[in-house]
């Protein structure tokens, strides 16, 4: 079944004006599905709750900058070695954004539970000695281990309504291949009701079938495939191009206050189409593209 849609169609069709629970793929400044994120901002969708991977970055920050998220469940939002994410920081400090404090293991196991219909996940010993379960009682609780009688910490299953994900390539059915690291994106796809996929290139099924074990996400989990070459920019797309630290730094400069963040959104997101944005970025993208050799996308280097 052909699931290829334009970027605007995919968001129009699968993201309601107000959507409950969205998860966004990618980790740190890698494989953030920025084309989908920007289009959601352009179409001014409201998101009740966003879940990041264990390390969110611009994928979450830009939605916060646009003011369209009420709550965020995360264990990290930032720009790693480059610095803190200004709007994430400011909107929590000012009380505008509710944060559901999580840790990496819970996000990973919680998605596993969501994918597998498990009622909850019993967590390894240790989390109860942190403050996290104290401040996030919606996701963390305690029960009895019937095998030992011990009281143990448990985490709630994570079952997003929508997952926004990037993959290196897919066929029109949504059979998708990730190059490089998969982070928790595959589990997001397994756990979510609706999966929107942006890819660098759409390829024929025969191309995917050459290495059936390289497929990361089977088509039956995917609802829309959007061809968005360069669509992770200014974050990296593994196998295609590196992140643009200059553009991230520029963003951080502009977003030092709410006014500046708005200016960035106006200038780089709502103020232009995705096509125009990428035309503007084309020069930098060319510089950031991986060369040949081991760093060019080696699709034999895949993990299921």
């Amino acid at each position, binding site marked *: 079944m052909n699931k290829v849609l334009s970027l605007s169609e995919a968001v129009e069709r699968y993201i309601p004006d107000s959507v409950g629970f969205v998860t966004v793929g990618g*980790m*740190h*400044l*890698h494989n953030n599905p920025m084309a989908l994120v920007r289009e959601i901002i352009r179409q001014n969708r409201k998101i009740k709750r966003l879940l990041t991977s*264990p*390390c969110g970055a611009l994928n979450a920050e830009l939605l916060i900058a646009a003011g369209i998220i009420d709550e965020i469940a*995360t*264990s*990290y*939002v*930032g720009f*790693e*070695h480059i610095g*803190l*994410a200004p709007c*994430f*920081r*400011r909107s*929590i*400090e000012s*009380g505008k954004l509710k944060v559901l*404090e*999580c*840790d*990496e*293991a819970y996000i*990973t*196991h919680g998605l*596993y539970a969501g994918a597998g219909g498990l009622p909850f996940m019993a*967590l*390894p*010993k*240790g*989390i109860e*000695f*942190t*403050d*996290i379960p104290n*401040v996030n009682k919606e996701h963390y609780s305690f029960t009895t281990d019937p095998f030992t009688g011990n009281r143990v910490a448990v985490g709630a299953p994570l079952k997003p309504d929508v997952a926004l994900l990037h993959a290196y390539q897919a066929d029109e059915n949504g059979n998708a291949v990730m*190059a*490089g*690291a*998969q*982070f*928790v994106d595959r*589990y997001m796809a397994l756990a979510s009701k609706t999966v929107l996929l942006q890819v660098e290139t759409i390829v024929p099924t025969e191309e995917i079938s050459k290495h059936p074990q390289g497929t990361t996400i089977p088509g039956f989990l995917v609802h829309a495939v959007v061809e968005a070459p360069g669509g992770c920019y200014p974050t*990296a797309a*593994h*196998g295609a191009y*590196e*992140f643009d630290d200059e553009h991230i730094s520029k963003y951080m400069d502009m977003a030092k206050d709410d006014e500046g963040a708005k200016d960035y959104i106006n200038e780089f997101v709502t103020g232009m189409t995705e096509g125009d944005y990428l035309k503007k970025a084309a020069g930098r993208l060319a510089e950031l593209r*991986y060369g040949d050799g*081991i*760093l060019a996308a080696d699709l034999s*280097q895949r*993990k299921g």
Partner: protein
Amino acid sequence: MTVISNNLTASWSRSELMAVELAKRLRNDDVAVMGTASAIPQMACRLAQLTHAPDLYSIAGGTCSVNPHLAPVVPSCGDYDLLRADTSLSLNDVVLLEGRADVLTVFFAGGLQIDAYGNCNLVSVGDWAHPTLRGPGTVGLPFLSRVGRILIYTQSHNPRTFVEKVDFVGGPGFLRGPEEWKAADLPGGGPQLVVTPLCTMGFDPQTLRMRLETVHPGVDVDKVRAATGFDLIIPDSVPTTPEPTTEHLSILRALDTNGLLKGK
């Protein structure tokens, strides 16, 4: 390895010294994991592999590549370049092994706040619900309760970072001291080392509070005391941290062609 001039030795950076000190604590049979923004521990592991610990395994917590070749070292733990490596795991695998607790022996930790008992905080300063400074979040720090040895490193040695008690426990150290620590009966061995741009610190076996071990060349004990926001245990005699050797520096610089540790 060719011998290089003494000028090189003279010009080591604080970050290079920190990488060397961390490397010295790694053993040949360790499996070490690092997380976000981990150029220093990445280099420490590679240095150890190329010197006294050839069988050491190091895992870059983002891509989860095993023994990344780091030619050159990169600033992001999720970088595609890190997949130039011996092998790799999935993130889910690494999270599992962090739970299992008997396989991964070393974790490199840090924090916005680090307290006298080695508890770490990357979440918030002030009241969590109304923070004066919101940090990025705790990522995998709860794993500190389960790992064999915690090696803490930070580029910030000042009283805001080194506090008596963290405002939010995200990475458990020795909790509130011997009584709580014993009662908790955690699988992990607790924090072993703290490396900063000023000094190295360990933990007093009785009180489990941080104790000065060595001061870096050019740093005196009073400077460390003033930069630390709690009552640091200071032994009568505090040796000076050895300078990096020319061998160490030539290895580090061959890896760090991007200059991530240089002059910092």
